[in-house]
């Protein structure tokens, strides 16, 4: 293809782009499905040779007029070159370029047909069916080409496959009916059929084994992907935390906090499937976990939480109750003088109840100071404005328990 060298003007869009990962060190010829009018052969060739697509297409058309050499070359390249990965810079052809490409393809095809007819004196009665079959095959090939997307999805895909198949069948039928006497056909047709059945029967085990090994390979790939995901997760979380703990081994408070946080994250990762609904909404159990985690991080208060019936969505009244739970926990952290608290949240279908309990210093509810009064109010306000009740029980020296109950009717 030396005659193309006169046209080696570097197209800005064709400057070599970074090769995708896994590319070989030497330049390879890939088809470019993104730049495709038919199958991306010309675009790939142009990219590989560093020339403009249009010149490659023109060359193909010229070759096609040499008794269809261009068409054969195109088909061969289509079949033998891999479909390259999508690349930046190889933008999909716009409407004008696509139309021009289509026109060139049509010209090439027509040229090849004409040249074959002229040089070999073949009549239209042969050329037309061959052309029809080629078109149909091209359509179907295009559908099943690249991307691993074997099953047709959209209406357009189906239309394309159907049209292609119809063209092939019609073309072949015309060839067969036009050339062969039907009476002589029966026995040979039967022979072909029997042979086909035999081949199918014999090839079943091979096909099955191929299918099974493919399945196994896929399963192995999935396992490997999972393993590497777990490894990277552990590296990003657990190993980092362990490194931090080693560095801060002289600060027990920090170490404790790091360990608790890591434990929580890991639990969330391992068992956290129930923390979100399939719709993406946070469940009550998940929300309580988040609240407990926030308070632990912010105040160093260890929260032991127990949730019963907590796999429904939080909902509006749930927000109110859980907001109150958070306030109550912050209260414990600030005033109770202890470093642990128990939280119990239960949804029995009718009532959402929450209990926050500590074994701290407690207080006399009759003689509360302003700050505490205010907070109790913010808890009360959230819950009571939505029809719930709040009870505070506290004994000096034995701790405090806040009980929240919210009817769930109307949810």
């Amino acid at each position: 293809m030396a005659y193309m060298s006169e046209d080696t003007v570097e197209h800005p869009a064709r400057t070599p782009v970074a090769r995708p990962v896994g590319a070989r060190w030497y330049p390879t010829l890939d088809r470019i499905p993104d730049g495709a009018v038919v199958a991306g052969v010309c675009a790939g060739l142009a990219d590989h040779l560093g020339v403009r697509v249009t010149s490659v297409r023109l060359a193909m058309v010229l070759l096609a007029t040499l008794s269809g050499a261009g068409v054969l070359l195109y088909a061969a390249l289509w079949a033998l070159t891999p479909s390259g990965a999508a690349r930046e810079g190889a933008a999909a052809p716009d409407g004008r370029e696509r139309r021009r490409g289509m026109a060139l393809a049509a010209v090439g095809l027509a040229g090849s047909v004409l040249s074959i007819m002229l040089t070999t004196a073949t009549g239209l009665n042969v050329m037309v069916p061959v052309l029809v079959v080629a078109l149909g095959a091209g359509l179907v090939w295009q559908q099943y080409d690249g991307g691993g997307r074997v099953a047709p999805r959209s209406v357009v895909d189906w239309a394309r496959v159907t049209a292609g198949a119809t063209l092939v069948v019609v073309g072949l039928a015309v060839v067969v009916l036009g050339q062969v006497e039907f009476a002589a056909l029966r026995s040979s047709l039967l022979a072909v059929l029997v042979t086909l059945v035999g081949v199918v029967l014999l090839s079943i085990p091979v096909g099955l084994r191929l299918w099974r090994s493919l399945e196994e390979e896929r399963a192995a790939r999935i396992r490997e992907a999972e393993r590497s995901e777990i490894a990277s997760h552990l590296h990003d979380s657990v190993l980092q935390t362990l490194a931090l703990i080693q560095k801060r081994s002289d600060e027990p408070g920090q170490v404790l906090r790091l360990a608790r946080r890591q434990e929580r994250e890991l639990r969330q990762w391992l068992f956290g499937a129930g923390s979100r609904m399939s719709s993406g909404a946070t469940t009550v159990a998940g929300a309580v976990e988040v609240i407990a985690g926030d308070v632990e991080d912010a105040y160093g208060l260890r929260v032991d939480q127990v949730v019963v019936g907590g796999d429904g969505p939080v909902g509006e009244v749930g927000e109110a109750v859980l907001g109150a739970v958070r306030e109550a926990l912050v209260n414990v952290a600030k005033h109770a003088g202890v470093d642990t608290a128990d939280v119990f949240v239960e949804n029995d279908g009718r009532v959402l109840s929450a209990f926050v309990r500590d074994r701290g210093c407690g207080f006399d509810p009759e003689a509360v100071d302003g700050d505490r009064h205010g907070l109790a109010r913010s808890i009360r306000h959230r819950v009571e404005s939505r029809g719930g009740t709040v009870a505070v029980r506290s004994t000096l020296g034995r701790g405090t328990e806040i009980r929240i109950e919210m009817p769930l009717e109307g949810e």
Partner: protein
Amino acid sequence: MTDAPEVDGRASRVFLVDDHAVFRSGVRAELAGQAGVEVVGEAGSVAEAIAGIGRVRPDVVLLDVHMPDGGGVAVLRSVLGSDPGRVAEPARAPEPTFLALSVSDAAEDVIAVIRAGARGYVTKTISGDELADAVRRVADGDAVFSPRLAGFVLDAFARAAPGPEDRGEPVHDPEVDSLTPREKEVLRLLARGYTYREIAEELFISVKTVETHASNVLRKTQQSNRHALTRWAQSRHLD
């Protein structure tokens, strides 16, 4: 649970089963200074544990839930046989009692060891004092409910109970399958972090009665019909 009753005379002989040697030595050290508790052996695998328990004949086995080769459930099945109901009667206890000790958060696993015969479940973050109390308690034939276990059991029974939408299904032996309101009350208080003594005060009953309720709940969890709890386990997986 600082209000465990005093053990009369003899110290409880404890056997540790955990596949982490570091954790075993930690528990050993924590229990070393505790009165009424004596560690007499340990094992790092299911097979070792079964052999060791048969040889040493301990009173209490502290059992890890998650181990290779079947975990705590495998040890329980092998030592107690397939009928966990037997250990509900501490009077005939030539076999040891089991206390599950785990970091596991998966409710199904915890309920599984209880159903296989463990008398209680505590998490590994428990303090040495609390652990010693729990050991003394199971040695006495009581059940040990950490708040978390109480929550799991409440959840299990709430879901296993036939809901309004499937009334058509036959209800299996309601006597075994459901908890009494009082038992639910006790479980809720346990889940809220109350000790047995605090529950007794709250409900104006004796600590002994609370212990009886706890034991009954444990027995019901162990004996409740397989079908109902299977459904519960499935519903957890489907969510």
